[in-house]
C-alpha cells in the first residue's frame, strides 16, 4: 500500500479506510403488454404463450417480442399444464434466501406445444430418477394464494406417462421453418 503523508494534526488518528454512501432508488415496474397479459391470466391459473409472426413458433412465457427476430408477438395462445423436461440440474448446496429442501431439482420445462422452455422446480421425484424427456405436470399453489406472480406454480411433478424420445426433448424453437439456422 502506498505511504500517505498526513498533516501532523492528524497523527495518531485512526485512518479512514472506507466511505459509505448508501443509495436507494425506487421504481414502479412497467411490465409491458405481454407480461401484463400473461400475469393477469396466470392469476386465473391459465398459462399463455405467444405465437411468432415469423415462423409460428410458440413462445412461453411471453416477453413482448420473438427475441430471435425482433418481431412483436400479439397473438396469445392458451397452453396445457403438462410438458417435459428439456434439461435439469440437481442442487446439493443451500442458497441464502431460499428455503428449499436439499437436494432439489431445477429444470427447463417445455410445455406441450411450446417451442422454448422456462426454468422451474421439479419435485415428487427422487433426483436419481429425473431424466431428460420425462413428462411432468404443474402443481399449483392453493387457489387462495395465487396472484400475478411467477411463484404460482410450486413445482412440476412426474405424470408417469412414457418419456418423449431423448432426441426430441429440449429446444425446438430454433428449428421451426429455419432448418439451416439451428442453434440446437
Amino acid at each position: 500500500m502506498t505511504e500517505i503523508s498526513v498533516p501532523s494534526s492528524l497523527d495518531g488518528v485512526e485512518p479512514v479506510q472506507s466511505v459509505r454512501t448508501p443509495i436507494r432508488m425506487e421504481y414502479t415496474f412497467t411490465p409491458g403488454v405481454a407480461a401484463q397479459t400473461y400475469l393477469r391470466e396466470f392469476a386465473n391459473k391459465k398459462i399463455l404463450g405467444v405465437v411468432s409472426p415469423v415462423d409460428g413458433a410458440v413462445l412461453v412465457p411471453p416477453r413482448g417480442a420473438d427475441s430471435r427476430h425482433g418481431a412483436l408477438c400479439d397473438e396469445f395462445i392458451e397452453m396445457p399444464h403438462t410438458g417435459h423436461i428439456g434439461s435439469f440440474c440437481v442442487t446439493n448446496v443451500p442458497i441464502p434466501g431460499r428455503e428449499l429442501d436439499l437436494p432439489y431439482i431445477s429444470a427447463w420445462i417445455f410445455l406441450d406445444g411450446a417451442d422454448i422452455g422456462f426454468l422451474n422446480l421439479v419435485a415428487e421425484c427422487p433426483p436419481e430418477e429425473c431424466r431428460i424427456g420425462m413428462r411432468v405436470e404443474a402443481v399449483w399453489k392453493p387457489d387462495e394464494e395465487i396472484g400475478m406472480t411467477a411463484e404460482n406454480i410450486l413445482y412440476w411433478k412426474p405424470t408417469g406417462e412414457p418419456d418423449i424420445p431423448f432426441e426430441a426433448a429440449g429446444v425446438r424453437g430454433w428449428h421451426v421453418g429455419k432448418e439451416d439456422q439451428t442453434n440446437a
Partner: protein
Amino acid sequence: MWGKKIKPMRKVAVVAAASRQEEKMLDNEVEMMVPLITEVRTKTGLDQTDIGFTCSGSSDFLAGQAFSFVMTLDAVGPVPPIAESHVEMDGAWAFYETWVKFQMGVIDTALVYSYGKPSPGSLQDVLSTQLDPYYIAPLWPDAHAVAGLQARTLLEQGIITVDQLADCAVRAGTVESREEYFSQPMLSDPLRKADCPTYADGGVAMILAVEGKAEELCEKPAWITGIDHRIDAHHFGVRDLTAVPSARLAAEKAGVHDGPIDIAELHAAYTTQDLLLRKEIGLPETPNHSQRSYSIKADTLMASGLLRIAEAARGIWDVQANRALAHATAGPLLQQNLVCVLSGESN
C-alpha cells in the same frame, strides 16, 4: 498533428430514422423499440443479417435492472448472431462509436438505437447518482437545483439576462408568451418551470450506410461531414460554469464553421443551456429556423442526443436544410458534448 482537422476516410450517411416520445409509456423497453427498429429496417429494405454492426445506448439506472440493454436486444433479434456493442451513454455516443467502426473499414451498414424510460423511477434521483460519489451525490441535489447553480452564475455575471430566458422559453414553446413566462413562480430559483425540461419516455432508431450503399437506401442521404466529442471536468467545482469549452472545441473540430448552418438541433434541457451553447458554438441567439423539436419540451435521458441527430437528418431529407448541426450532451451541466454536422452533399 491532431490539431489539424483530419478528413474522414470514408463518407457515411444517415439513411433512415424513427423515433417516439411520450410522457409515460405502458409498453416495456422491448415493445417500445420493436416498431422503431422495424420501421428503419423496412424503410431501407435491410434485414438484420444485412446490417454490419448494431450499437445502442441506454442506462440501467433508468430501468432499475442490471444489464437491461441485453434484454432490449429482443427488439433486434440476434439470431443468427450479430456484431453488437452498447454504451451506457446517450445514443449519440453509440452513433460516434459506429462512425469510428465505419472508418475502420469493417462495415458498410449499421443500426444505431437508444432509449430511455424514466417514468418507472425518479429521474431527479437517477441524475443525482451521476455526480461525484463522495462529496456531492450523498447530498442528493436534484437536477433542477444543479442547473439553478449554473443559471444564477450566468445571470449574476450578466452573461445572460432574464429577458433572454423568457425569449428562449417562448422560442422552445414551453410558454406562449413573455407575459406567461414572467407570471410563472420560481421552480428552482432563478429557474421557472418554463426553463426546465419535461421528461419523457422514448426511443430512436437509425440506419447508417457508407458511400456507394447509402444512395441505394435513401433518396437524399444525410452525410456526416464532421463529428467530434469532448469532455469537461466531472467535478463542476473546478469548472467555470459560464463557459463550455468542450462544446466549443467539439464544434470547431466537427467543422461547424466551415460553412453556413441552416438548422441547429441543440440538446439543451434548460433555457440557460440553450443560450450558453449558442454562444459557445457560435450560433445566432435567434435562429432563422427553429429546431424541429426541443429537448426542453420532451427530454428523454439516453435518447435526446441521438434524436437531435435524427431531427437534423430529417431536415436534410425534407430539403429544409443543406447543412445541419446536431448536438448531444451528457453528464451534469453540459459536461460532455458531441457535435455532428450533416450535409445534403457528400463533399
